[in-house]
């Protein structure tokens, strides 16, 4: 696969200034999104997935702030764009679909009008043309009877249907990257299957990259090309999908996979990760996962690991660093 870079994220640091201190939600992460790929971002709640996505769109609002790093799209830093540049960037370059479709749709307008509106903000078209395009989009996202649905209000649609309307709206300006933040978490499994099939179809037909955020490893394994595993605001492992699931390197990835019931059908007990996620308000020494890690040594608790390449997997762990064999 050609690996043309679409978005490059360098040392992204996003923090929230809260009453009880400075919370580091995204802790200096770097990664790339390639043209036309499905990149999966997985991790447990609070690990910084949504904040990463919002940072990409420069949508972090006070008390939050992108405190460091760059987000490069065609050589331009998104974090330095002015309002006008941002408006065209959001939509034409990146669009986002959120978990809860009901809160992102306006209840007092028909779904058709809401999509028309997005089209007309970004393109100079007549209302008739906008309507035609909207109906085409509704058809593209597999909404039956799109002419009829055009005039309906969000509450008249089922959860799965609303999620597809949100996707149609995000597609209105042919973005090069579609970010889906937990797009199926609130949906039932048969409806989720429909949405996942739709995402695959759109990626094929529109040659679009997808950044799929979820806490569900099975969803990621089913549709991602590459996978990023996040823990406590950091990327702990990054590899192609098959590598992550057949040859996990980071102890956290390994532990997560061992905790999944469906992978442990005949074992007596499920694996349990001991302890809790670190408090992101505090400064930490060493590796953030060390207190919960089976392999941790002294060095893990005192020295911060740096990212290293093992085969084609990027991993943030002392185990794979040169001095591990002799480490205290």
């Amino acid at each position, binding site marked *: 696969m050609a690996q043309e870079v679409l978005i490059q994220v360098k040392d992204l640091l996003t923090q929230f200034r809260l009453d009880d201190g400075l919370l580091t939600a995204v802790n200096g992460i770097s990664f790339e999104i390639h043209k036309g790929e499905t990149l999966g971002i997985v991790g447990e709640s609070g690990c910084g997935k949504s904040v990463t996505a919002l940072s990409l769109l420069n949508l972090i609002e006070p008390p939050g702030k992108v405190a460091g790093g760059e987000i490069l799209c065609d050589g331009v830093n998104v974090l330095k764009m002015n309002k006008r540049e941002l408006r065209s960037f959001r939509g034409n370059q990146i669009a986002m679909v959120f978990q809860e479709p009901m809160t992102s749709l306006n209840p007092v307008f028909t779904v058709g009008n809401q999509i028309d509106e997005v089209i007309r903000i970004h393109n100079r078209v007549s209302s008739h043309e906008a309507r035609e395009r909207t109906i085409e989009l509704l058809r593209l996202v597999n909404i039956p009877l799109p002419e009829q649905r055009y005039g309906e209000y969000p509450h008249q649609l089922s959860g799965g249907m609303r999620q597809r309307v949100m996707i149609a709206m995000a597609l209105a300006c042919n973005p090069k990257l579609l970010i889906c933040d937990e797009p199926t978490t609130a949906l039932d499994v048969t409806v989720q299957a429909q949405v996942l*099939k739709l995402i695959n179809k759109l990626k094929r037909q529109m040659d679009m990259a997808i950044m799929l955020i979820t806490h569900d490893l*099975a969803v990621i394994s*089913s*549709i991602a090309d590459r996978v990023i595993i996040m823990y406590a605001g950091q990327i702990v492992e990054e590899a192609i999908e098959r590598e992550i699931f057949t040859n996990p390197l980071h102890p956290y990835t390994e532990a997560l996979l061992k*905790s*999944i019931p469906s992978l442990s059908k005949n074992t007596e007990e499920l694996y349990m990760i001991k302890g809790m996620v670190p408090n992101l308000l505090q400064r930490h020494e060493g590796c953030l996962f060390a207190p919960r890690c089976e392999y941790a040594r002294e060095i893990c608790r005192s020295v911060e690991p740096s990212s290293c390449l093992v085969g084609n997997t990027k991993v943030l762990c002392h185990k794979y660093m040169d001095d591990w064999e002799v480490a205290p």
Partner: protein
Amino acid sequence: MSNLLEISNLKKWFPVSSRSLWGKPAYVRAVDDVSFVVKEGETMGIVGESGCGKSTLGRTILKLLQPTSGSVHFDGEDITSFSNSRMRAVRRNMQIMFQDPYASLDPRMTIANIIAEPMDTMKTVQNSEQRLDHIVELLEVCGINKAFLNRYPHEFSGGQRQRIGIARALSVMPKLIVCDEPVSALDVSIQSQIINLLVDLQRRFNLTLVFISHDLGVVEYISDRVGVMYLGKIVEIASKRELFAHPTHPYTKALLLSIPEIGSRKFEDETPILEGDIPSPINPPSGCPFHTRCPEVMPDCSQIVPELKEVGEGHLVSCIRH
């Protein structure tokens, strides 16, 4: 093994304000003619998509909701028409735990009082010393630090709250616990702790569990037998092994095809697994409730109401093709 729970033709219909065409009252048929038995010490899994009636079924079994018709036998007694006061003695042996560890614990009560509430209402302990001993024992069994005795729910994480919910359900040493999506709100690493705890307690105390979940992976792991619900009805019921190896009802097959699995690229092709949405339980389709979406539908399916029929040992399917 004897049957601890037997439910027969159980219905729970909720009246709704909107009336049907001819002015007859309309109902949500949340549970619509469900029958099955649960043996002592086994885990019966109930799966199905949201709104299919799982929670209503769980509550009606415990008679937290009065059945519209049908019967519930528990531990050899027909409890269907037991009065509230007679139910009190039965409730000691049937407890429930809920999905949302945030909403299900009273925020103004200490952990100790929350856990002890069932024993307090049922007066299962004689004095305060015995009560405290028992609370401490429950905390230990469920892996909660006993120093937290006098803290409040908001000081605990989701996983810890679910442990508190389990300790509370266990406090009166019930025979049956209905677990309504107990791990659905938890991250995988916490989920595995709670599942292990439930399995361990079940073995130690010979508990019988009705385990409700929309997560088929969890149900497959924890259950001995599994029932699949669709629009208020059980469409298939079998041992776990049989159900996952030989799903027979078209809805069960569709559910299994829809679950994402690690290492499978299930969603590459465009053909939908199921068309359309779940119909309204107020006006369920005639005949088989699944016929409007069934990939294997035949003309008779809209006419004939299928009954659960045995297709293999202990494997029941409600589909006229079988």
